């Protein structure tokens, strides 16, 4: 089986508002998939259900052969820690921690030497070419630098798939391109599976495959 992610018959409703409607999709290992659609079409909601941040109202999600629906909250957290990386539009770095500590954040609950953690974080900051800012806190970093730190954090646990919700949404076009290049590079060189939500048709054009959403449904 070459699927990294399979979703079947997913529905998500908030009270009476049906936000995701009967979505079924698969993402293959090493695939870079873009999810596009108008604002309010349910992209973020679908992403949070696919990644196990939220439980669907009905339907099932399987990541790398493991069903994540109906799991206990703590099991889901452990699963995310082991298998999933997140990149957010608003970076979501911890303001009191330095860049390298932010990268190592998912490893804090793991029994591990501080030195080992730092080594791993520094290695990733090196790959993102911002290891010289390792000791700075997020407030001292530019938007692009913050997002590189966030990508490094998403990679720290050797994830099987990365979920990115408009990772370039808060960045100017030049920086956006640089971040896109990093993601493309990770996909090409390391064979990473990525599901990215984007508004930008142009950025989406460089993905392997585009999934269109409208009013909670996948239309193509």
């Amino acid at each position, binding site marked *: 089986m070459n699927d990294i992610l399979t979703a079947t018959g997913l529905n998500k409703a908030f009270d009476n508002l049906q936000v995701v409607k009967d979505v079924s999709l698969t993402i293959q290992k090493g695939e870079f998939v873009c999810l596009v659609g108008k604002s309010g079409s349910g992209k*973020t909601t679908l*992403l*949070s259900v696919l990644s196990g*941040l*939220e439980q669907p109202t009905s339907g099932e999600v399987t990541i790398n052969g493991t069903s994540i629906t109906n799991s206990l*909250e*703590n099991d889901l*957290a*452990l*699963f*995310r*820690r*082991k298998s*999933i990386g*997140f990149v*957010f*539009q*608003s970076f*979501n770095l*911890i*303001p*009191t*921690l330095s860049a390298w*500590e932010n990268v190592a*954040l*998912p490893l*804090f*609950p793991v029994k591990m030497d*501080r030195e080992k953690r730092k080594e791993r974080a520094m290695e990733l900051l090196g790959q993102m070419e911002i290891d010289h800012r390792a000791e700075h*806190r997020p407030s001292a970093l530019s938007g692009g630098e913050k997002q590189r730190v966030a990508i490094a*954090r998403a990679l720290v*646990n050797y994830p099987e798939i990365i979920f990115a*919700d408009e990772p370039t*949404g*808060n960045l100017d076009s030049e920086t956006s391109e640089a971040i896109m290049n990093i993601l493309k590079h990770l996909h090409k060189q390391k064979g990473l599976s990525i599901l990215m939500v984007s508004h930008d048709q142009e950025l989406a054009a460089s993905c392997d495959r585009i999934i269109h959403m409208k009013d909670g449904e996948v239309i193509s």
Partner: protein
Amino acid sequence: MNIQYLFKELYHRRRRTLTAIFSLAVGLAILITINALSMAYNKASRIPLKEIGADITVQRAGNVPEDLTGPVFACSAVTIKNDEIKQIQQLPGIDGFAQALLLWVFDEDRFTIMLGIDGENPVGPGTLRSEVIDGNFFEKGKHQALAEISYARTYNIQTGDQITIAKKTYMISGIVDASRATKIAAANIYLDIDDAQKLARESKQIQAVSPFGTKDANILFIKANSSHIEALTLSIKNILGEKASVATPASFLKSLGSLFALSDKFSLATSLIALIVTILIVLKTMAGNLAERANEIGVLKAVGWSNKNIASQLAGESIIQCLMGGILGLILSFIAASLLGLIQVNIPIPWEMSPTPHFLPGGGDPVFKTLQLPVTISWSLTAFSILLSVVVGAVASYLLSNHISQIKPSEVLRNE
């Protein structure tokens, strides 16, 4: 719990950390200080009796002497019969017992207060043995006596002199400085109780007002564990009747009249209020902290922290803050205690306990034991407050851990 993260959080959010630490410290300092103050007044109230080596003194009030010549009893200390003394001595809870006999002696040329004491007894005025500043303590059966220093000065008495009081002659074996030691049952001349009893028995004035037998006395000194004092007081009053006057630390505490001295309830109520306000402040600070950091907590969840991981991280933060608050609170309390320790308290000694005739110069003037308020913060109070602060931190974080599990990780996707 990650220590590095913990301290960075506390350090980089200094204002919040300091607010939490200070509010806890102030609350705790109020709590500790009130308790220390209340204990200090309690301790102070024990001092007048402790100085005379007792916890309870017993007297009986009687009639005013009809004719002021020769040996008489002050109206506040008349005969306590030997059989009554024996009954009292056998009461449970008594650790030490002494009797004494206080006499006023009106001679032609002078007035003398004499106290007949049991010099061998470590309880009661026998403690004066250590206050002899010249010569020796009197020897039993040799008609010796000790002169109090100011009396000795007034009448130019020196060690080795013979003095005659109530037609009996005594050799002054030494000079004693009683003023430094005690304000209770203060006398001019201290002599063996047998000699004093003889004087009393032979005095017509005394026999007329308050019949006196060979082995009777008029002041009792009792040592007892503080837990027995209340019960003993009741029993003694039962034995001696309504004229009994029993002095205890509690009666001195009452006469101190301070708010803290007056009622344990006041200290308890204030302590409780301080404690509750402190806990509320800590809870509010932490709840605010949690609300402010909802997104951060969502991020931790998204990257795979379990509720338990997060709860223990935040509990660590709050316990450390509370511990520091506790330590600062103790420091503030020690400062407050050393300032309060400068307060002088005057403990009034009831006239009855050290009677002097009103018509003499200075007679009937109020007598005070003046001392620095003994404010100390005990080890147990210290340990209690540190423990309390840690418990407050732990309980507060336990109460709030439910909020942590209610924060949804998916919210972090919607925080633009």
